[in-house]
């Protein structure tokens, strides 16, 4: 069953066509790879699904609901969570606080309960903290709970962002280049975490990635974008052999030479 479906989405920045009628259908429980050359519209598509950009036309359906009726901050409640291409942790907050913010949308206690420190508030705060600690430990950052995020290493910040996205227990997780800038061991660590998410917890993942080995290795299906359009879709093997994809990445002459 398809959990996310993007139909004919157009996004323009002024006169620039960023997305020209993109179609995408993500099956539940899959890791769906999204690849394409630089500027092909992958991140724009992510940001459109997150609600930061408004499509001029087209429709995005998530779990059967039309997403356009939800404002960007309401989408996490629908089960949509994400990480960002350029690290976007809350640098001045501790690692623990970062992951606690990831549970913000679940909080029910209002200003009054915060002022009076009601038992409900204390209970909620304790649960949030404990859950955050659990998720930090899960990505291997357990010992850094009190360290400020901007003093973590680059790879640790990537993992922290992942923990922050996961703590909301999303049904769909969008990862925008999670392996960019990571060392090989870190990439392996990440691969293991992602496989575990899909196989044990049934999280659906949209994975944008330039590290081809990672994306080919774990994706169930792959969509290739170029110039804001979908040029191909299929299993990793099909994509590897697709002439159009090779052209998009390497140019025409190389493709001829390969033939």
């Amino acid at each position, binding site marked *: 069953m398809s959990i996310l479906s993007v139909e004919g989405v157009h996004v323009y920045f002024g006169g620039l066509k960023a997305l020209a009628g993109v179609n995408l259908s993500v099956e539940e429980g899959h890791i769906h790879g999204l690849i394409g050359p630089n500027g092909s519209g992958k991140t724009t598509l992510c*940001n459109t699904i*997150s609600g*930061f*950009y408004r499509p001029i036309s087209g429709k995005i359906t998530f779990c059967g609901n039309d997403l356009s009726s939800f*404002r*960007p*901050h*309401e*989408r*996490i*409640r629908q089960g949509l*969570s*994400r990480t*960002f291409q*350029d690290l*976007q*942790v*809350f*640098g*001045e*907050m501790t690692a623990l*606080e970062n992951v*606690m*913010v*990831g549970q*913000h*949308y679940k*909080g029910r*206690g209002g*200003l009054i309960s*915060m*002022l009076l*420190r009601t038992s409900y*508030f204390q209970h*909620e*705060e304790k649960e*949030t903290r404990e859950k955050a600690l659990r998720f930090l430990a899960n990505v291997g950052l357990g010992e850094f709970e009190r360290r*400020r995020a*901007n003093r973590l290493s680059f790879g640790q910040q990537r993992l922290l962002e992942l923990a*922050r996205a996961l703590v*909301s227990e999303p049904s769909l997780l969008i990862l925008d280049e999670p392996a960019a800038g990571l060392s090989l061991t870190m990439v392996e660590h990440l691969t293991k975490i992602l496989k575990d998410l899909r196989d044990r917890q049934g999280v659906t993942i949209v994975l944008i990635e330039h590290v081809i080995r990672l994306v080919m290795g774990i994706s169930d299906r792959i969509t290739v974008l170029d110039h804001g359009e979908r040029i191909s879709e299929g299993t990793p093997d099909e994509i590897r052999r697709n002439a159009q994809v090779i052209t998009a990445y390497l140019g025409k002459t190389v493709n001829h030479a390969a033939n």
Partner: protein
Amino acid sequence: MSMEIILQQITGGLAIGCVYALIALGFSMMLRATDLLNFAQGEFLMMGAYFGYTLLTYTPLPYIAVFILASLLTGLLGVLVERLTLRPIREQQSPVLNLIIATVGIGICLRIIAQVVWGAEPIRYPTRIGEGAVLVAGLPISSMHIWIILLAVASMFALHLFLQRTLSGMAWRAAAYDHATAEILGIGFSKIVALTFGISGALAGAAGVLLAPLFFVSQDIWLIGPRAFAAAALGQFSILGTMIGGPVLGLIETMAAGYISSAYKNGIAYAITIIILMVIAVPKVPSSGSVGQLYARIPLMEVLAWPAERMKHWRHILLFIGGLITLFLPAVLGGYEIHILVLIMIYMIEALGLQLVIGYGGSIVIGHAAFVGVGAYASALLSLKMGVPFPFSLMGAAVFTGLLGLVFAPILRLPGHYCAIATLGFGEIMNLVMSNWTSVTNGYSGLSKIPKPQLGPFIVKSDYGFYYLALIVLLLVYGGLNRLINSRFGRALVAAKENEMASTAMGINVTWFRSQTLAIGAVCGGIGGSLYAHFNGFISPDGFSIVESIGFLTMVVVGGLGSLPGAMIGTVVVFGIPEALRGLAEYRMLVYGALLVLFMMRLPGGLTDSVPRVVAFIMKTRGGVKK
């Protein structure tokens, strides 16, 4: 209305408008090239006017020569100020707030220097042009207006030629478009910034020499600076647009003053600024950059690397000693000191509110005194006109200012410096209302005989009684804010300040959180204002002006952004310096302005940030740090 008057109004409006355009061109150029809003632009105008005055009085030079000379001098001053103060701050990669505050500090310093050199009394300008009127098609037009328009247009034309025809001008345009690329092509950004400050200083100076003959020269003419910003906004910050925006603003102002109300004339420019900014400058996509902060604050905890238990232990001991001292302080102090202490505590309450908005919310608000004033007036009116007992007038003031905060909260959607200028405008408009809604506020003469607070059977009459009343309110406000900050609300707020995009993705409704913050900050201001009204027994619009707003900003910044104790320490310092420097008379304000600039240059994290730094330094030199 006769043709004659209409024509005079039009030329008058155009003349003022041309002056606005010159000032506003400085704003536009600065925003284009350096992404900085110079809050000292009005003071440069003032300096230009004074330079012109001195030259006209002590040299036989003709007006035109003085006009050119004074502009050049002011331009030079601009370059100097940038080189000495702003460049070091910019080179630390400080965020926009630091630069804004530094320019505010520079403005204060220039005002005091002018006061020391030329005296506080308004001076009549010795004009050598434009006396009398010329007849145009049989109708008299003030020749002064014609001179102003001609000289202003000539200056703008010169600027246009410079930007279009000279190599430096083209370099400036290239850098304004994309300074990274321009830098690669060999256009040094520092030179461009210096050039921008030189030109915008010279333009402001020219505006000063043109404007002064219409008014008296005094330190107060700096207020025209922020008002002229509306001309830049009208022109959408393009050079040509600003040139047209100035005269349009001048005409709108004069027409509105003539046909609607002259009392609110000065508010029109601010209203235009706010409206236009709300239309063109609200970002459609949440930003992923940090808005407010500022500085990598080092928590003392991290420096000492003490276990939480030990920190707690020390905190309890300190709290106990501090509590004892505050409780018994009145027993050893005289009446005057107590009076000052009560005022300091009231200011602390107000500053804490602003700390929440700026330090945690990351919105640069320069209109906090308006909330304080509205709270003071609301509380005073409730008890004077309706006989509402004190606790309820205090609550009424709190609720009313809170609602006012919510109503104006959309302003906080504006990014950094736009938010600063829009809130400054909001403050000025509120101040105009206090001054001109005479039937309710009694205008400039203010409200007096505000009753002392009555709590049940007790009337808080003495300063001693007030000491404890203010102390209790202060503790409640501090405790409340502290609890809010250390909860989901505070986390969401800091997250939104750090990164709007990521926090939106985490489900935080950034706009709504900012609105709540402004409302809570306003409530604190309103509570402080209410206490002040009942403590002082007299309030007038003067006590809630832009100068007060800047005072609050200083308290928060000097103490340390993003720290509640910082706001209180800052209040003591800002309040204490003028008290301690009584002997220096007017120079003490100079110290105050210089402090702002120095803090931004050397201690952008404020006093609360300096303690951990000093501790870290000591520990490092002793070599006793174990990693």
